[in-house]
């Protein structure tokens, strides 16, 4: 008994020495604010007042009745669907080409595709805003291309695509790096064997490489889904939710509810609801795609 206790204390000591500071930081900056945030969803706090009332679940009722929230949520789902598909497809194609033997300047190209990911979302948004509203419009008017003659940023039907284009440009290179790491790790002898067995390039890709790449896809799909739902900076700098709120993605909507409309409780409820949804989607995705993994 005593020995057991001593072992526990020893373990605790080791734990505290190695992980104590991290645990403390995690508790204070993630867990406590998270719990406090949930607590605030049951109040009508405006963000600054010292006194506030408990309102039970009425903030959640407000969220479920808020048309603007659901419109924004559906828009975000659409945005996530487009970006996940395009970013991963493009990222994989780039990685596949750049790990082949016949491409010159591979390292330079890899760096080139990765660089957009190093630029902050706000700057990226401003740069692309200039491209969409000035450069493309100028080209469109000079060459009489009707779909470019008016800024896409002011067209409620096209504005979502500007966000998708910028996100694809931003993340494809990053996902490409993850795919390259996966592709490089596929044992050469397997590919050799497939080649000797007479599998052509397409068959090797479909029957061998893609199944072995599932672990990479789990990571990239997870990252793109999670980033897609959380995107705020590009949304803010590129479209500001406009024209007339038709490109207001969910993070921006939550933020405006909490800080602009000064309904902190409602905004926090939306954020918590969003957390549950994104967590559920991500966990489901990882769980099901794990089943697709194969052993080499």
């Amino acid at each position, binding site marked *: 008994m005593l020995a057991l206790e001593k072992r526990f204390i020893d373990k605790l000591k080791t734990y505290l020495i190695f992980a104590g500071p991290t645990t403390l930081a995690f508790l204070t900056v993630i867990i406590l604010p998270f719990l406090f945030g949930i607590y605030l969803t049951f109040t009508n706090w405006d*963000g600054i007042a010292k006194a506030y009332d408990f309102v039970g679940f009425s903030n959640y009722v407000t969220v479920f009745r808020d048309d603007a929230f659901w419109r924004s949520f559906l828009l975000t789902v659409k945005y996530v669907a487009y970006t996940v598909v395009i970013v991963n497809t493009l990222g994989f194609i780039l990685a596949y080409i750049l790990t082949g033997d016949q491409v010159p300047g591979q390292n330079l190209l890899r760096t080139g595709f990765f660089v957009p990911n190093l630029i902050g979302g706000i700057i990226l948004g401003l740069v692309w805003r200039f491209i969409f509203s000035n450069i493309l419009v100028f080209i469109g008017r000079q060459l009489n291309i009707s779909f470019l003659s*008016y800024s896409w940023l002011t067209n*409620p039907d096209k504005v979502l695509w500007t966000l998708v284009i910028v996100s694809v440009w931003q993340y494809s290179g990053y996902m490409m790096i993850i795919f390259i790491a996966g592709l490089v790790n596929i044992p050469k002898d397997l590919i050799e064997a497939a080649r000797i067995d007479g599998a052509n390039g397409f068959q090797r890709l479909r029957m061998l490489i893609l199944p072995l790449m599932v672990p990479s896809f789990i990571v990239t799909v997870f990252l793109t889904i999670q980033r897609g739902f959380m995107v705020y900076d590009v949304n803010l700098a590129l479209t500001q939710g406009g024209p007339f709120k038709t490109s207001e993605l969910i993070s921006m909507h939550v933020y405006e509810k909490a800080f602009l409309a000064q309904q902190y409780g409602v905004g926090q409820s939306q954020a918590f609801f969003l957390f549950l949804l994104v967590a559920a989607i991500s966990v489901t995705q990882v769980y099901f795609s794990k089943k697709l993994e194969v052993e080499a």
Partner: protein
Amino acid sequence: MKRTGLGLCLLVLVLVLASFSPAVLAQDVHITILNSKGEIQTQLEEIAAYYSSITDGVTVEVIAAPVGQSPFERAVALYASGNAPAILMLDAGDVLLFQDRALALNDEKWVKDAIPNSLDMATAEDGRILAFPVTVEGYGFIYNKAVLNEAVGGEFDPATINTRDALKELFDTIENSGNNAIVIGPEDWSLGAHFFALAYSGQSPDLAEVNAFLEGLKNGTVKLADNAVANGLLDTFDLMKEYNYDRLDPLASTYDRGTQLIGEGEVGVWFQGNWAWPGIADFDTTGGQFGFLPVPISNDPTDLGNTQIPVGVTKYFILDGEQNSPAQQQAAKDFLNWLVYDPEGQRRFVQDASIIPAFSNITIAPNDPLSASIMEYIQEGKTMNFILNLPPDHWANVGASMQKYLSNFIDRAAFFAEVEAYWQGVGK
């Protein structure tokens, strides 16, 4: 080995704790001002530096609320981090939200010198005066006098524009002279908080009646479609749309483009307020002669709004009474008194920063033509209420609906329906 590990941990812990303890030993008083008028950031910094240089042991620092972030939001973040500035510049409508934390200023000397009604938005229900009125602002159609002189072939008289028909005639005259009449800025804050707010303030010169009208919108008894002022205002907006320089792609226009077009005399008229001066001044190539025209809402010159422009105190300073030491609070009070009563403080505040002061003892006036034009309207009594107690998300929502109407995405009936739906959802 283990020993060193523990020792290191302790050292880190001590360092972390040390950084949390306040540096109370300093004897100098350091105060911070949160500025939410981005266009005067440099001027305020210069004022702060000068004030620091003439006082013994007091240093003043100015921090800016970033563009695109509301002052409320920035102030909330600073409070939450336990780092509230001594002086915070807030929008008029947000002042009373801070009543638990702001100092009562009833005993300050400037209270009795503040112009009538300027403290209304700063007075809590219990009678405490919580804020210092920073600036009076107004808005309307900014005109470039050089362009209009050229159009009318002589000296343009702003008093001639007192009906919608007169405005239309002016637009035609400008276009006939080879210039463009007007550019509409598509910003939601401009269209929502300023332009459509004219439909509220135009209801009555009496603020109580305006509030009753807004109350009617909230409970659904007011129908905008039956309201003459709202319809008249949109008729004027239709006219503006017809002559809009950017009518091909109205939402692609920007605020900066507006300052450039009006400054360079590319257009004659732009809807904005006197805060636009620093931007216009950067582009001005036409001799610096600008002024305001009212936004006419009908063809009867005696109707409210046809000869008046909205004017009000838009920004207030509150003093933090919670996270600053008594010495800092006193320094903040002294600084405000210096702005109002010291000749050098007055000059720097009013003329360098182009502020129209809200104090009757200050006799100097700002040098810029837009503020001078506002002062003229004030002196002639041709002002109406600048509605500043709208709900905080009003500008974003009504602004979005105005943008839809501007780009012909919805018609007037749908626009009114959206605005009414917004108001009926307020506070729910």
